[in-house]
């Protein structure tokens, strides 16, 4: 991980309340990969905490993240223009790793959790894997990146909570409804806690033993594993750092 100054190349809305931010790296950064995240300054002295945001795409010298404009900090971030600089620590966290024999991959994403799923599609494109994507959005105005999911997946279901786009359902329900067709070797997921809980209980109720990994979100302090602010509970009673030990955990390992 490195502390760098990055230059904004693009910072624009792609859906209601969602911005895509692409920035240029000043130097080579090792270890950029799917499911890891960056910790971005929002660019003023009043907001002391960085915003941890999942990597969506990366090239050798650029990184793209997508973020929800939710509070004062992300509102400020959304006002930053191309050409301006931000400080950033990256890459952080463990990320998603697919094993050789994990050929069929189900991606279950909800809300801003769809963006780390894009990072997986991009990372493993051309490896011959079969992706089945189940992406849930609040409403039609929030739907984005449809082409990326349709082009990168053998099966892609984009659904909304209110039925204004696609089926009126959620990502987890859409996934379970299509489980027989997807036949995944592994399930990767990211989304709000209630969604991840539904996924965990759904797998348990159905007795599904397929390996499943989830990426967690938590308010962070340092982002590098030092301050113990962003912990999650583990099933064994211990606590783990979301920023350093995660954000990706085996679903059976974490107490959601």
């Amino acid at each position, binding site marked *: 991980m490195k502390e760098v100054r990055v230059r904004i190349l693009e910072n624009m809305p792609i859906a209601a309340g969602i911005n895509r931010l692409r920035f240029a790296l000043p130097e080579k950064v090792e270890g950029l990969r799917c499911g890891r995240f960056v910790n971005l300054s929002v660019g003023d002295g009043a907001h002391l905490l960085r915003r941890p945001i999942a990597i969506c795409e990366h090239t050798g010298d650029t990184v793209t993240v997508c973020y929800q404009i939710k509070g004062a900090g992300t509102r400020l971030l959304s006002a930053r223009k191309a050409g301006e600089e931000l400080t950033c620590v990256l890459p952080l966290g463990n990320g998603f790793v697919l094993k050789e024999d994990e050929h069929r991959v189900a991606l279950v994403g909800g809300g801003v959790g769809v963006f780390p799923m894009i990072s997986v599609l991009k990372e493993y494109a051309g490896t011959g894997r079969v992706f089945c994507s189940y992406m849930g959005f609040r409403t039609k105005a929030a739907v984005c990146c449809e082409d990326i999911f349709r082009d990168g997946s053998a099966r892609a279901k984009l659904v909304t909570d209110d039925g204004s786009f696609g089926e009126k359902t959620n990502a987890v329900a859409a996934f379970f409804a299509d489980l027989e067709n997807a036949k995944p070797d592994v399930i990767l997921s990211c989304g709000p806690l209630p969604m991840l809980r539904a996924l965990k209980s759904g797998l348990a109720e159905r007795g599904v033993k397929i390996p499943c990994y989830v990426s967690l979100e938590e308010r962070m*302090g*340092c982002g*590098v594993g030092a301050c*113990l602010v962003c912990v999650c509970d583990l099933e064994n009673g211990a606590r783990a750092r979301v920023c350093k030990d995660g954000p990706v955990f085996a679903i059976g390992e974490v107490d959601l």
Partner: protein
Amino acid sequence: MADLRVNVCGVPFKNPVIAASGTFGFGKEFNEIYDISVLGGISTKGLTLEPRLGNPTPRIAEGYGVILNAVGLQNPGVEEFIRDDLPFLRGKDTVVIANVAGRTIDDYAGICARLDGLVDMIELNISCPNVKCGGMAFGIRPKSVKEVTRAAKGALKKTPLIVKLSPNVESIAANALAAQEGGADCLSLINTLTGMVVDIERRRPLIANNTGGVSGAGIRPIAVRMVWEVCRAVSVPVIGMGGITCAEDALEFIIAGASAVQVGTANFTDTLAMPRIIGGLNEWLDARGIKTLQELRGTLRLNN
């Protein structure tokens, strides 16, 4: 190059910049970003005799120019620290300060006895606002400050004792004197100020613990004032902290009388904050032809 070395109650520091407890873990993570041997010292995450899980999340929130935290002393316990983390810190060329807390006076004495001679200094955390028992309970009244300091000091044969003071008190100078009378070799201040941030949509405090400790640039003037008050009241050396983000901030504390400084929240905003502060101190002193920090320390001249 100015001489940034300082000596705090017999312990030599290569420079006055120390990582503040709770923001730097046991140094391993930041060492992935830069060699932490450049630092004057490191105060560890608060340690207790037994492992602690800390508070529920969210444990952090933001105000204007400040943050609030309520981690609640999550730590692996002193034995795991000694086994897994201390050898790494000992391998670094920096002063190792163990920050310690407890539920009872016996806990404080016990953990001090266990760490005596193993670390360069011990910092007694009697000012953590985020735990129900111990922590700040001992740090509020002069009588208990003196009592817990005396017990800790009595358990230490080799390692100098720092007492970390709470700002959430009637008179921080009175508590400083009480710690000095109890045998403290050094004082550090300020710990965080107790605060609250409310989520107005949910009408609930944002932090799970309801209240949290306020730190960051916004509290600096309060911290400088308190360090100045304490430096006037006591004869033992003082380590100043509270909202230091750059060399100029650190110099305010040193001019007010601090022998060294700690940097906490700035590590979150800029992982390279402390190396930059060290570089900035050198530049500032060089630009003014000041050769040592001793020339500056406590040189504050009051108006009238």
